[in-house]
């Protein structure tokens, strides 16, 4: 049997749910399973098997304005869709801006609680979050930590090493020296063949610095990841899909669950795209992505989503009426 090329082993296909992206990891063909297990087993204590996960981003709970007067409707619909999917994903990753910031006393905490209430409806084994600037930049991440724990961390799942990075809590678009040191130490445990998924809020490369679509020390993150053969970075922040490859790393932006930003290359100003009440999930994205190793180009398929009529949203007003927040 031809030895398994681990770069071929790590193939990702992703199906958007119109409100996030569902990623499926392909396990090796049956005859190669033992080889894959030999390669991966013992490296991080897990044997690879097929699994899927979903990325949510930029739910902005608490936002209510012309770009989306329906608040949490898309978020709630996305939760319904994940729960209705078969098989259910193993994980859901939230890549920041879970909430919209507020300086009114107690209101941001209310929004964080409402986020937790809606996200707790996800019938999946695990949910992981990293903060966006609207969650954590004004208080250095204190509220986020109260709700979810550390703003950066890592874990292993079925042979894949996941790393959540925080590039918002320093107020500026940066990771910072302390977290970079942690990242290098975390990575040092793994061989170059380990599949790695980084999830964070802002892009780790200079997508559009004049729109604040960058991380000032993202290049140092990428240097630390450079020795690894299969790295995928999932991020949000830009409220639109985007795919980018540099070396062994594929970067994917997920659409938002609140409103979309335009394509900056069209020369338009950075303003949310207008809301269309007849198509409430328009621009929030329906996306199918198939991505592979360095030799396989990224494939993006746009898929129409049939919108199920929704009974209503929880929303801040109802949340308060229920007496759960105040």
């Amino acid at each position: 049997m031809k030895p398994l090329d681990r770069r071929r082993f790590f193939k990702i296909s992703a199906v958007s749910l119109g409100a996030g992206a569902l990623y499926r990891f392909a396990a090796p063909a049956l005859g190669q399973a033992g080889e894959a297990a030999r390669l991966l087993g013992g490296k991080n204590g897990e044997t690879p098997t097929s699994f899927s996960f979903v990325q949510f981003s930029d739910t902005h709970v608490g936002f209510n304005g012309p770009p989306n007067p329906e608040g949490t409707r898309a978020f709630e619909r996305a939760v319904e869709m994940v729960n209705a999917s078969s098989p259910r994903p193993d994980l859901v990753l939230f890549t920041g801006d879970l909430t919209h910031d507020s300086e009114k006393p107690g209101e941001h905490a209310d929004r964080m609680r409402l986020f937790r209430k809606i996200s707790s409806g996800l019938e999946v084994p695990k949910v992981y979050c990293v903060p966006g600037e609207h969650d954590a930049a004004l208080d250095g991440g204190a509220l986020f930590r109260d709700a979810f724990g550390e703003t950066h961390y890592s874990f292993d799942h079925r042979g894949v090493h996941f790393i959540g990075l925080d590039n918002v809590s320093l107020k500026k678009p940066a990771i910072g020296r302390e977290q970079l040191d942690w990242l290098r130490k975390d990575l040092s445990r793994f061989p170059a063949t380990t599949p790695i998924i980084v999830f964070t809020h802002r892009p780790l490369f200079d997508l559009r610095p004049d729109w604040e679509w960058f991380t000032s020390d993202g290049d140092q993150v990428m240097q630390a990841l450079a020795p690894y053969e299969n790295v995928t970075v999932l991020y949000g922040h830009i409220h639109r899909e985007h795919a980018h490859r540099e070396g062994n790393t594929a970067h994917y932006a997920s659409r938002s669950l609140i409103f979309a930003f335009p394509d900056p290359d069209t020369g338009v100003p950075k303003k949310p795209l207008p809301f269309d009440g007849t198509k409430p999930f328009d621009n929030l994205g329906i996306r199918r992505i198939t991505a592979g190793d360095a030799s396989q180009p990224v494939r993006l398929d746009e898929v129409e989503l049939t919108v199920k009529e929704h009974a209503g949203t929880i929303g801040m007003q109802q949340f308060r009426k229920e007496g759960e927040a105040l």
Partner: protein
Amino acid sequence: MKIARLTLALLCAAAIAAPASPQDEPAASDSAIAITAKRFEFQPAEIHLKAGEPATLAVTSQDVTHGFFSRPLGFDEELSPGKTVQIHVKPEKPGRYTVICDEFCGSGHGGMKMTVVVE
């Protein structure tokens, strides 16, 4: 290859905005262009500079900490409230450059920007 790309990037950046040397710096502070920052705007929203000529920007935050960032013009400053930061620039290439606040300052932060026109 990576080094060549980096070198090229540095050369490009230098071509757009060479840092001003001490003799380039305007002698009197009253020749500086005053800019104020407050949530969520810079005033004035647009300034004009001449290509190849040194200039000083005197930027002051009137409320909270802001950032003052432009990658092609080569500055990334933190603006503490009430403290004026002097930024010496010598833009070489004509064009319109966007300066943004890159320190999150509230809900309108994403739209806080100004334009430097180099003629």
